[in-house]
């Protein structure tokens, strides 16, 4: 603290040969699959080699798709399709499934077919009269960028292809732009919390982009009066498109998502303001805060002894930016490093605003990769890291006493989704910190390392 911040925008970092640039994010193909699989009663056809289909399977699990409702297919491209193009095999595959009882088939192209010039849009247009469902081609080659870019590509296609513009506006309604760009591993609970709050406020949700969304809802999106973006990493383009094309106003724009007391209160108040239901919003805030305080009083989380401990936050912007205030205000730690996977200008502005309002001056890294994270941890040497298992490994050999795995936890199985948004979300995060603190006491090795 007290030093000048070192700001690193993506692409400005070292290109030294020693730099390992292991990414945190998967490719655009994965992002597109994550988005397409959020539409229920549909199927996804990966026009790709079979290795890329792994990313579809991963997206399938992340979206918690029901295999009784959603099918995934793959053209399993090989060298023959690279030489001659894969349009024939794509057409053959679509014809083979033409009687599937689904509402839409999303055709996603991977890197190979896009390099050799397969025209998936042309194939889908030609075959549309032969099939009973909507064919939606999404040109989502992995090389187009990160999974965030893939989400934006898929949303753009879905909106342009499916939304009808001859619908009447529903007063007091909202379209949730909830891309699967949330590093909370059990993120559907965040979405559920938002829906629950909106229900209580009497705000009608017209559609969700995308999670278990029927295609009829997508078609009807233009009837929404407002949109609510639930990510700082992806989806802004979709919200802007809805605004420009259908006059759908984006609410809660430029406000960190509702993680932690202040953020939740601010977010709910903004919502209450827009829909003229401030009283209900204040009630939710009061009830929530009472519930959190009563719970803490009874449960006695000991992690409060981490007062003024130097902390690092390594996460996506969706979770990471609101965590800055949570770590500062609720945990009373001092964030000395904020490393975000994302590097959009809007993320930069949002974080700068938060840091300024909190009077913080940490090292900030945008578009971080594992190498940059490791280097930053070596430089800052925090005692606590809010991140994932990756940071647990990246901080080996450093005096990092606790790594609170709040994002993208690997090898951890959870049957029940747990939100970070809202008041129960605060308790969930507190629980993560508390358990990490307890594990530090229980582990002989880690207790020694932590110099307790």
């Amino acid at each position, binding site marked *: 603290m007290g030093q000048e911040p070192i700001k690193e925008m993506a692409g400005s970092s070292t290109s030294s040969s020693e730099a390992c640039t292991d990414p945190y994010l998967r490719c655009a193909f994965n992002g597109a699959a994550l988005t397409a699989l959020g539409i229920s009663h549909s199927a996804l056809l990966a026009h790709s080699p079979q290795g890329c289909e792994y990313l579809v399977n991963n997206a399938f699990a992340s979206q918690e798709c029901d295999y009784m409702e959603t099918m995934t297919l793959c053209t399993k491209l090989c*060298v*023959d399709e*690279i*030489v*001659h*193009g894969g*349009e*024939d095999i794509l057409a053959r595959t679509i014809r083979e499934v033409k009687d599937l009882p689904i509402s839409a088939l999303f055709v996603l192209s991977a890197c190979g077919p896009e*390099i*050799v*010039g*397969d*025209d998936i849009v042309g194939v889908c247009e030609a075959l549309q009269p032969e099939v009973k469902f909507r064919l939606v081609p999404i040109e989502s080659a992995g090389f187009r960028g990160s999974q965030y870019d893939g989400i934006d590509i898929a949303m753009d296609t879905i909106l342009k292809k499916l939304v009808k513009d001859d619908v009447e506006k529903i007063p007091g309604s909202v379209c949730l732009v909830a891309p699967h760009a949330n590093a909370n591993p059990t993120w559907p609970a965040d979405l559920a919390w938002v829906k629950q709050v909106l229900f209580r406020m009497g705000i009608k949700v017209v559609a969700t982009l995308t999670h278990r969304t029927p295609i009829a809802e997508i078609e009807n999106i233009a009837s929404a009066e407002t949109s609510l973006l639930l990510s700082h990493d992806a989806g802004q383009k979709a919200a802007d498109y809805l605004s420009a094309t259908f006059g759908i106003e984006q609410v809660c724009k430029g406000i960190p998502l509702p993680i932690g007391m202040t953020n939740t209160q601010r977010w709910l108040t903004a919502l209450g303001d827009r829909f003229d239901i401030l009283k209900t919003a204040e009630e939710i805030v009061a009830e929530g805060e009472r519930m959190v305080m009563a719970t803490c009083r009874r449960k006695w989380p000991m992690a409060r002894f981490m007062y003024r401990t130097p902390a690092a936050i390594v996460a996506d912007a969706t979770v990471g930016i609101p965590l800055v205030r949570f770590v500062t205000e609720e945990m009373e730690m001092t964030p000395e490093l904020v490393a975000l996977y994302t590097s959009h200008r809007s993320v930069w502005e949002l974080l700068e605003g938060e840091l300024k309002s909190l009077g913080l001056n940490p090292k900030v890294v945008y578009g971080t990769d594992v190498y940059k994270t490791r280097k930053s941890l070596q430089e800052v040497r925090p005692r606590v890291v809010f991140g994932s298992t990756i940071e647990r490994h990246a901080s080996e050999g450093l005096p990092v006493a606790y790594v609170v795995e709040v994002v993208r936890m690997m090898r951890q199985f959870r049957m029940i989704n747990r939100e970070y948004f809202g008041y129960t979300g605060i308790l969930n995060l507190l629980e993560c910190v508390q358990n990490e603190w307890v594990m530090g006491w229980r582990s002989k090795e880690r207790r020694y390392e932590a110099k307790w």
Partner: protein
Amino acid sequence: MRQIAIYGKGGIGKSTISSNLSAALHEMGHTVMQVGCDPKRDSTRILAEGKFIPAVLEEHREQLRIGKDEYAINLKNIVFKSPGGIYLVEAGGPEPGIGCAGRGVLTALQILKDLKAFSTYNIDVAIYDVLGDVVCGGFSMPIREGFAEEIYLICSGGFMSIYAANNIARAVQRLAKRGDAGLAGIICNSNGDEAFEHAFIPAFAKRLGTPFVQFVPRSPVIQACELGGRPVVEYAPDSQEAEIFRNLAKAIIENDSRVIPTPINDLAELETMYRQCLVKDKK
């Protein structure tokens, strides 16, 4: 078996040189196979009496269409013998606008290798006539995969052909380090400005670190042979041009030079070198 690849700018006369070289080598008693590595599949027309022969990738596509694969391809359907006795193959390419032609060329060559085409016909010399420029990594694959061992660059006095030759030399420099391939020499196929070409091309070859092998003049005899669909050594065996191709064949057979070239990486330097020679020539 000698594996010779002819590279150069599109339209510079690679197919003409390759076909006449094949005919001259055949006349010397070698068993020659000419492999056209261009999706246009027009490399072997001069040797095939002006006809287009079916291409390997066409046959491959046909087999795929009926649910079979490359193992269903028969050598008889892809290797043809010219009236003069030279074995002819055209790699062909995917349908225009789709697929990867570079990868296609490699696939065609791999099919030839898998079907043991060279040993089946006891080929002494294989000549690969490769598409105009190394437009992408795919077209460098014949070098990378060891099909092309001796690489000859064709150029004329035109700057763009020199530029293309230099670029191909850069690709050879990159790829030669990992295998047996190397630049074996430069052949000049004249565009008419002979004085300049005689001055510049040998100097350019020296700059690349490779021998200047042969000068082929612009000649109505060669053009007439092309129109007649026959190589010069057959159509006009007693002509001066036939002698030039015989000399070229002899020079290539005797040439054991294979170098990693030293191309000019700075376009400005290449232009300066070209202009200086042009000025001297005008004086």
